[in-house]
């Protein structure tokens, strides 16, 4: 049965090849999407199996000497942690691929050329990143993932897209180089050319226990690499440019799945390969708090639907990393059970974010598909025109805003319940609470500007085709299901955390029928939803039919713009808390200034290099100086 690991590989490779070979690109993209959907289903199957038994598949590529031996054996392995992420890839990949069947119809032929080939490979590379059981191959797949996704970002070939893609590629490549350094260091110095995870988890903790300096260096390199890819705040600037430019189903995958890959890496590395460290946990928490705050504050000022979602992705990564950091800190400080719950919350939020952010990107895509614009000010009152999309969007909005009892609330609630209990982590919990309200504000704006506010001029559109609304509905349903029945996802996640060697028993966290952290917090989502639903329903029936009359505008019948512009939302609040934006702008200016200086130096160096004589003379002088100095020292 371990062969099952290879099914997604076959399917997506066939998809990519067909997408490349078929000369007419619309059918090519269609087939690529279809096969990727099947590949995603296969990934789901792999993930499902992986929860119950570990899957393992080894492959020897060639026979070679010792240095290349590292690359020789490709080992695919699915354990519970990978299964969680595989499930995310599978579900969202499936939805995004099905969605893509119709969605890409409105693209030109030439623009689809890049898409048809790279889209299956993008999903495949993410899959391989997660199933790879070898650090060297991991980094290879990681780089491939960046490469393929970069092609998808620029697929529209507009100037903006190409700039964004370039920025994205440069930043994530630079980040990946730090990762590469760390990997090379680990394989060469620490574990002596053993790169498979099995031996790493045995050897590395022992090595790190002895070499603290090495641990610090590797951790920093790894954090930088992972944070760039996950768009943690000081290193996030590529994401809001890159994600909106990709086709919407790819944006859904980029935001929903790809930025979770570094989370997987961090879980893998910091919890199994290295001793759980309080310092690292604290660093991650601080970064998470920054991410939360800046992500949401910048999401608050966006007027472009996909850009708003992209900034919100930055913020949501903050929640996930907060859970991870808090979990590590709490475990290291001896609060094992609280820490484990925080880790479960982080994993749960990862899954939840994938569901609702994927959903919201698909919604933004549907709106773009029908109206041709992403600008919130050009949209309005689409609720009656696109009711299914609107309902799905409402579910996504309420989930991400953390309205009980949807899934976003449950995972956030778990985060609060763990972080608020310890004085040292409580600040981060408080920030998370505040940011949650801000998220709600962001998505009130997102939803109301698109679906309820009066439009600038009446938009004559209809509902998107079945293959587009069905994935949205599926994701919305999953959001509701995981919110009402959190045990469905919490049980596997608890066993996942247990499999990482962190004990979490039923007495620490019971999930059925209510989620209870004994003595600390408890929550019964089903009861809440049932009560609200029943009361509302009874009242709605009791009220009955509602008459319709024209809207009251003080007796005036002129054609006025009654629309609150997207840029006008929460103006007072933003003004009163403007120092956050000022700080952000100051940092941006600083970085830009530094970059200008670096460029100047590089340019002057380049100019100098044209003057060969001067260069040679200079080099000779420097050499002479060095010889004299060194010689003098030797004497």
């Amino acid at each position, binding site marked *: 049965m371990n062969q099952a690991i290879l099914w997604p590989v076959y399917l997506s490779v066939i998809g990519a090849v067909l997408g490349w070979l078929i000369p007419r690109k619309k059918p090519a993209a269609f087939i690529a999407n279809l096969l990727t959907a099947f590949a995603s289903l296969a990934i789901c199957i792999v993930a499902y199996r992986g929860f119950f038994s570990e899957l393992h598949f080894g492959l020897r590529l060639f026979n070679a000497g010792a240095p290349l031996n590292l690359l020789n054996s490709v080992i695919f392995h699915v354990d519970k942690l990978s299964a969680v992420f595989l499930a995310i890839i599978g579900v969202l990949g499936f939805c995004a691929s099905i969605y893509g069947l119709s969605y890409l119809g409105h693209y030109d032929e030439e623009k689809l050329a890049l898409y048809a080939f790279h889209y299956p490979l993008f999903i495949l590379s993410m899959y391989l990143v997660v199933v790879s059981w070898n650090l060297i191959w991991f980094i290879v797949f990681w780089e491939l993932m960046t490469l393929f996704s970069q092609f998808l970002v620029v697929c529209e070939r507009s100037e903006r897209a190409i700039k964004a893609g370039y920025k994205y590629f440069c930043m994530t490549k630079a980040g990946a180089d730090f990762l590469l350094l760390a990997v090379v260091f680990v394989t060469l110095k620490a574990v002596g050319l053993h790169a498979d995870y099995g031996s790493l988890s045995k050897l590395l903790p022992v090595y790190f226990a002895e070499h603290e300096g090495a641990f610090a260096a590797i951790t920093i390199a790894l954090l930088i690499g992972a944070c760039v890819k996950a768009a943690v705040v000081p290193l996030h600037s590529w994401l809001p440019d890159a994600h909106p430019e990709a086709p919407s189903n790819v944006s859904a995958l980029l935001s929903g799945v790809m930025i979770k890959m570094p989370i997987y890496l961090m879980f893998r590395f910091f919890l199994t390969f290295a001793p759980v460290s309080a310092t690292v946990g604290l660093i991650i928490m601080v970064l998470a708090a920054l991410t939360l705050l800046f992500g949401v504050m910048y999401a608050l000022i966006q007027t472009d639907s996909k850009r708003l979602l992209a900034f919100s992705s930055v913020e949501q990564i903050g929640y996930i990393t907060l859970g991870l950091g808090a979990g590590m800190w709490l475990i290291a400080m001896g609060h094992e059970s609280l820490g484990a719950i925080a880790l479960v919350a982080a994993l749960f939020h990862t899954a939840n974010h994938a569901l609702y952010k994927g959903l919201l990107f698909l919604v933004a895509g549907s709106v773009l598909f029908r109206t041709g614009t992403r600008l919130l000010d050009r949209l309005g009152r689409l609720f009656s025109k696109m009711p299914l999309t609107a309902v799905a969007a409402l579910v996504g909005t309420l989930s991400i805003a953390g309205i009980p009892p949807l899934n976003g609330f449950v995972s956030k609630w778990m985060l609060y319940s763990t972080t608020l209990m310890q004085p040292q982590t409580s600040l981060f919990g408080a920030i998370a609470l505040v940011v949650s309200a801000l998220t709600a504000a962001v998505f009130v704006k997102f939803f109301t500007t698109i679906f309820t506010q009066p439009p600038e001029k009446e938009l004559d559109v209809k509902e998107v085709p079945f293959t587009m609304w069905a994935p949205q509905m599926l994701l919305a349903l999953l959001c509701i299901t995981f919110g009402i029945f959190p045990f469905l996802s919490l049980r596997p996640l608890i066993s996942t955390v247990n499999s990482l060697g962190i004990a979490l028993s039923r007495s620490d966290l019971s999930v059925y029928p209510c989620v209870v952290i004994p003595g600390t917090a408890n929550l019964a989502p089903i009861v809440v939803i049932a009560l609200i639903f029943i009361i509302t329903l009874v009242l709605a029936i009791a009220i009955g039919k509602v008459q319709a009359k024209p809207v009251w505008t003080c007796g*005036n019948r002129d*054609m*006025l*713009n009654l629309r609150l*512009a997207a840029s006008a939302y929460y103006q007072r609040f933003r003004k009163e808390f403007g120092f956050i934006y000022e700080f952000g702008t100051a940092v941006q200016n600083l970085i830009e200034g530094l970059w200008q200086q670096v460029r100047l130096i590089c340019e002057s160096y380049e100019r100098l290099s044209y003057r060969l004589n001067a260069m040679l003379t200079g080099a000779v002088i420097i050499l002479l100086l060095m010889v004299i100095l060194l010689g003098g020292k030797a004497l």
Partner: protein
Amino acid sequence: MVDKILAEYGAVVLDRNAKRLVVQVDDKQLRPLAEKLFESGFYYANGVGVDERGLGHDFAMYHVFASEKDKLYLVVKVSTSNLKLPSITPVIPGSNWAEREAMDMLGLEFEGHPEPERLILPDDWPKGVYPLRKEFDYNERPEFVERKPESTPQRTDVVQLPLGPYHPALHEPEYFEIHVDGEVITDAKYRGFHIHRGMEKLAEGRLTLNQVPFLAERICGICGFTHSIAYCQAVADAAGLDWPERAKYIGVILLEIERLHSHLLWVGVVFHLLGFDSGFMHMWRIREKVMDIAEALTGNRKTYGLVLIGGMRRDIDESRKNWVLKTLTELREETERVSKDIFGMKELINRIKGIGVLPKEDARALGVLGPVARASGIDTDVRRDHPYLAYDKLDFKVPVYPEGDVLARLLVRYDEIIESFRLLEQALSEMPQGDVMIEDYTIPSGRVGLGATEAPRGEDVHFVITGVESKVYRWHPRAPTYNNLPSVPIMLRGNNIADAPIIIASIDPCFSCTDHVAIVRKGKVIWKGPLGEGVKQVGR
């Protein structure tokens, strides 16, 4: 000084007395003359278009200028045979509405007017029908035309918030279109005259000279009395009448009572608009006593139905006078006490400080009047500058504040309340004995008369041309709000939407308050009477 200017532009003096001067100029000289007058300190007080064909002339436009410095009203007449006249709006913005009104009502054309659009007539009024021409009957009803929906270009960056015509913060139908960016007002447009009642036509068409005061006081529910006084002053001016001294004093007393109740009401409304309902209630509680005084003096809770061309219809007897003096003393103490408490509320004062600022230059150009002008640093008051009734014999101060914000307007009105108390006490105690009415007088026809009073909200100017058979040929009242409203969009710009109602209210729009209370129990009216009594009745 004025004579020199007038001579320079070839003006012919038609009539003059100590307070006003009527001249006629050639239409080519009008604009330079107006510019010169504006530069030398005159503001635009009133503009009246007249269909003079019935007097044997053509159409004419009377521009009324006023100057505090020269203590003079200057009526400049220009005639036209072809309905075309030069516009003076480019040199005096304050004449904008007056000229547009003449366009609407008489079909005059003003060449060079910056916005020659309809002002008064509704959109469904047919074109080419001019209600104030003499051939148009007062009871004629033209066919309405289909109203075209306005197709102004839509803006997306701002919300075009309709404030009115029916808005709870506005007690009269006015329409402000406020452009709001978030919470900040970027622009405002005004459209009014939703309840133009055709009073001028009615007066010209079917009332006699002595009936008009009763119509004039119904122009406004708050400052009605000052309108009837202004009208009677205008007719008296035209006929050269002089009232008995006692009537003049009674007029002052009633005018000041009107000012008192109007200002107290306004202060209450301001507090209500600020969400401070307790202040509103207390101010109105005090005001209730002013209404009692009015009732004691006139038989009406409002000072209505008391004035005729010849003087007052009712005298004030000694016992009433003493009771009023006593009540006034109590009232003054109570006002000062409550006001001291309220002015001590820092948050409340901060709320109105620095909002709705009207700079002095704008105020002057638009001819802004009364407390609004005084709060913008313009030292103007008809009572002092163009004394009428007995004001020249009484002592009072004219408060002036230079800030130009809503707080300044509040302070000006508060100071005026205190001055009114002083004026009332002086007038009541110094009132001479004698008649209150002259009965035998004749009113020549075709004479121009001008009457001006200082209403609670500013200068009222009534323009009268007397007609035959003791009728008015032309009567044009100009209420202060007519000059003050165009300044509101200037005040609104850059302010918060939260401050819009208070800024609009700061020029003191008015609403009728002459109701009596009826107590209804089990569906039956069981008692009717004044409010104060009614409250006691309910308490029983």
